[in-house]
């Protein structure tokens, strides 16, 4: 498995910024592309390492995720849940209109 020799251009930056929901000013796209290319070319070092047959390590805990009983242990704190809402109405979070 060899990584695609990724060259990040401003079109790619636009695409990932869109995925990340971060709006970038036009003049920041090129410097960010350069930063990402520098970081990615450094990361290419990993391709030297033979990882055939190596199991990916996602968690170091060594234990499986514990299960708890499916019962209510908390709740009835609507005021607390909404306390930091930028905008709320009648006990709901308010967002810009999504359906015409």
């Amino acid at each position, binding site marked *: 498995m060899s990584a*695609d020799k990724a060259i990040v251009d401003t079109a790619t930056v636009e695409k990932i*910024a869109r995925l990340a929901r971060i*709006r970038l000013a036009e003049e920041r796209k090129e410097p960010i592309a350069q930063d990402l290319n520098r970081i990615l070319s*450094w990361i290419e070092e990993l391709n030297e*390492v033979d990882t055939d047959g190596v199991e990916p*390590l996602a968690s170091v805990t060594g234990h499986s995720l514990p299960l708890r009983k499916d019962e209510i242990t908390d709740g009835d704190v609507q005021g607390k849940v909404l306390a930091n809402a930028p905008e709320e109405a009648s006990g709901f979070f308010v967002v810009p209109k999504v359906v015409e």
Partner: protein
Amino acid sequence: MSNLLDLTALQARQGLEKGDFTSVELTNAYLAAAQETKGLNNYVAMTEARALEMAAASDAKYAAGNAGALEGLPIGVKDLFATNGVPTTACSAILKNFVPQYESTVTSNLWADGGVMLGKLNCDEFAMGSANETSVFGPAVNPYSAVGGADLAAGGSSGGSASSVAARSSIMATGTDTGGSIRQPAAFCGIVGMKPTYGRCSRWGVVAFASSLDQAGPFTRDVDDSALMFKSMASADPKDSTSAHQPLPDIDGAMAAGVKGMKIGIPSEYQMDGMDETIIKLWQDGQAWLKDAGAELVEISLPHTKYALPVYYIIAPAEASSNLARYDGVRYGNRIEEGGSLDDMYEITRAAGFGDEVQRRILIGTYALSAGYYDAYYLKAQKVRRLIRNDFDEAFKQVDAILTPATPSAAFPLGVKQADPVTMYLNDVFTVPANLAGIPGMSVPAGVNGDGLPLGLQILSGAFAEDKMYAVAKQIEQSAGFSEVPSRMAGGAS
């Protein structure tokens, strides 16, 4: 009564127990110290009223004879821990007005043991940085200054915590360590910083950066205080599914028993080109101290060490891009609306709320996780992560602990713009492997460089074997006899 600020936490605990002074007196001394050292910018918020209320309650506990392990000790809290009713910002504009309605497990443990909250401490934005320079409040400053007086970095991300403990504006402080964010600033500021085994301290209520790496730990003035604070912070927590349920080892017993007969690994791969001469010398001194105390030195190999940083700079941003998706301007945090759609609101809110480094890491992480690149970057990094962990597993079959330098250099000046982000990332070269492997690591001040700036040695041990790490740390502390104090310290260095 000697200067209260000179006392370590254990000494202060004894003084409180004996009635030499009250927690209110001690707390007032620290509140005044925080004022005196305000120029270091290590606190982002003080909680004086709460501190004095908690201190008075502690004094009552002493009077009633039921004082806790940290009763009446004034503690600083990194602004990454949710504190009920006290703003918690992660030093980011996007959370500037966020007031948690709950308390993190770690701080709950501290308060249950009698700790007194002084305030919230500066850090890099969302803990992303190695110099505390990405904080929306500006950098915390190292209480040690460069020759000529220039301001030095306190390190990062927990720069405020390290600066505060070193400058004596808190007797101890919490930190978090994702790639070295406790150990590096501790080394830069000449104090003790410890990252426990992954899972020892609950992540519940700690603002998440990279969840498979994040771990809270203590900043203290010496090794005994570190053990004291760690025992209070650690707990098995049903609210954190990755919380460990292993009992703590006998740390005090191990420190008393010493290092005689222990095997200490010296990894050849940590000999880096271009490393400060004084750091190489200090590392050799550390080896000699342990040998003199009866430990056996064993040369070991951790062959995948050089890949730890590239692995980290895929995994940490990938996890960050996912964790930080929650800051959408809907449920909490700042929102910016300029008409437009819901997506417009998200994009504008996040562009304005996150600083440049946070945006950069979110974008890198988004890229590494995106269709077509997931296998080449993220999966590849996770596979190499396993090899790094395997290196340590092999090493700990031969040795009880590992000794390395904590950082490749002493504290560097603030405000030196890094043209290349990779250069800044190299700071974490000695500390990142422990996070990837989930093992504990500790930085102990052990000497100074030619400019009189503190340098730390790092001790690593196997997972859940913090006792062995503390035994070695205690010996290093005793042999080094580190007694430097910074020039910008409360209570007046003369």
